[in-house]
């Protein structure tokens, strides 16, 4: 098995729901807590397994906003595991999930240096490295319904931008999505061979603008005054 995520950049709305739901589940999970520093102060910070960034792709008027969620890619060539001196970081042979044994980690940060995707964050309170577990304490829990045996971020996503499955099975939902939509890996040139795939935005018909009415004189004047007035 090669478990991982497919993230659909076409429909991600950048709501950070996945990150919040992940934090809620995992803070009381196997690698929890996900410590917050100064949570009610001026500069609240803390440990997160998901980070969502937004980019502008292309130049106006042919530009597009892309919301870009990132978590651990569960790489096949996981350098973070190879560089770990203590053996705290490991990649499970049976499903390819990369995990950190919190009892063995010495907090040297070396694995976070080896990760090109920023998946690992040090928890200053416990002094150990923490990262996405692919909700390992959930996906194998047979007391849960079949649907709930998925990572928290996948279930929560209101836009259905996240999919979970086995990439080794050519007929799994994730394999099909990657095949049909041209799913790609990030920074393939570094050779980490990440498992997670990103689906590019669909090529859609542009919204026609030639039927938009020309602006009237009065509205042009109003617009100019609006911009000229210093408030």
């Amino acid at each position: 098995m090669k478990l991982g995520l497919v993230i659909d950049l076409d429909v991600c709305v950048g709501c950070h729901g996945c990150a919040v739901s992940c934090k809620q589940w995992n803070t009381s999970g196997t690698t929890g807590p996900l410590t917050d520093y100064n949570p009610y102060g001026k500069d609240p910070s803390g440990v997160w397994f998901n980070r969502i960034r937004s980019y502008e792709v292309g130049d106006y008027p042919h530009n597009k906003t892309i919301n870009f969620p990132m978590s651990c890619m569960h790489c096949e060539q996981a350098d973070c595991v190879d560089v770990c001196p203590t053996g705290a970081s490991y990649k499970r042979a049976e499903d390819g999930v990369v995990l950190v044994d919190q009892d063995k980690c010495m907090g040297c940060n070396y694995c976070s240096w080896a990760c090109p995707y920023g998946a690992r964050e040090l928890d200053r309170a416990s002094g150990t490295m923490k990262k996405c577990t692919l909700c390992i304490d959930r996906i194998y829990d047979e007391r849960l319904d079949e649907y709930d045996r998925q990572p928290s971020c996948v279930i929560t996503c209101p836009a259905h931008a996240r999919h979970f499955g086995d990439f080794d099975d050519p007929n799994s939902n994730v394999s099909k999505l990657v095949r049909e939509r041209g799913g790609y890996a990030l920074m393939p040139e570094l050779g980490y061979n990440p498992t997670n795939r990103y689906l590019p935005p669909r090529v859609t018909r542009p919204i026609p603008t030639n039927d938009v009415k020309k602006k009237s004189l009065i509205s042009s004047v109003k617009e100019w005054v609006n911009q000229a007035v210093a408030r």
Partner: protein
Amino acid sequence: MHPAFSVIFFTVSSGAGYGLFIWLAIAQLFGLASLNTKTTLIAGGIALVLITAGLLSSTLHLANPKNAWRAVMRFKTSWLSREGVFAILFYPSALLYLLAIFMSDHETTTFIKLLALSVIIIGLATVFSTGMIYACLKTIRQWHTALTPANYILMSLTSGAVLLTLVLLSNKVFAASMAITGIGLLILTALTKAIYYFWVHKVTGPTINTATGFTRAQVRLLDTGHSAGTFLNQEFGYQADPSLLKNLKVGVFVLAFFVPSLLLAGVATDYLGVGAALLAFASVLAGLGAERWLFFAEARHVIRLYHGAQHT
């Protein structure tokens, strides 16, 4: 990368310590200097103090030092683990070597020769591992080069040679051959460092386009998704003033290589004495400190691409 003082001190201090001990063993093996028991013990003691201070300092940057003993567990894959194992192996052979020198009253027996050889090999392996810790990271192109371990080894040997010259002089032992060796190493190290700075200047590797997968258009960061600092910003976001970087590079060449070469030339020709050797070593240390700071400050991790950098 954020230049952490503990790691800068560790690599400079233990590098000089290993270099000193390696030169001590080489001088013994090939009769480079007429060492006596007292001088060997003093030099060996200084080397072990420098190494130990460095190693202790390196544990300061650990967030969970109670698990530090586990760092020797992954010798098979991790250069950090290998460095730890070689650093630990160095102590018994170094102590045994000093003990053998003390017992035999500096007669070069076959046993001592074997010990000297093992000290040289393990010492070099430790410094090489230190370099490889950085060189094996594909995420930082400024480090991912064969020049990194080469630089680490050369700088360790250079600072060690200058320090041994100082120790020899202060014990009134003939030091000209060591001083000349030091000058040769200073020139060689300066050349490799110059090659590194020239090479690191050229931009290669991943860009914001390959990082996001949008390779057919300009990509700009709109929002990082967080209002305050994160672990990633603190660890990888370090940005030094470009003019400071440029000035420091000049400082590295003047302090670490030019000034000590002149002073050692004075020592080799008997114009200058212990004071000059001391000044040369202090200058090397300051220069290497600046060099190590630059090594970190100039390293740009690929995660910066996701935070808006167009290239590393």
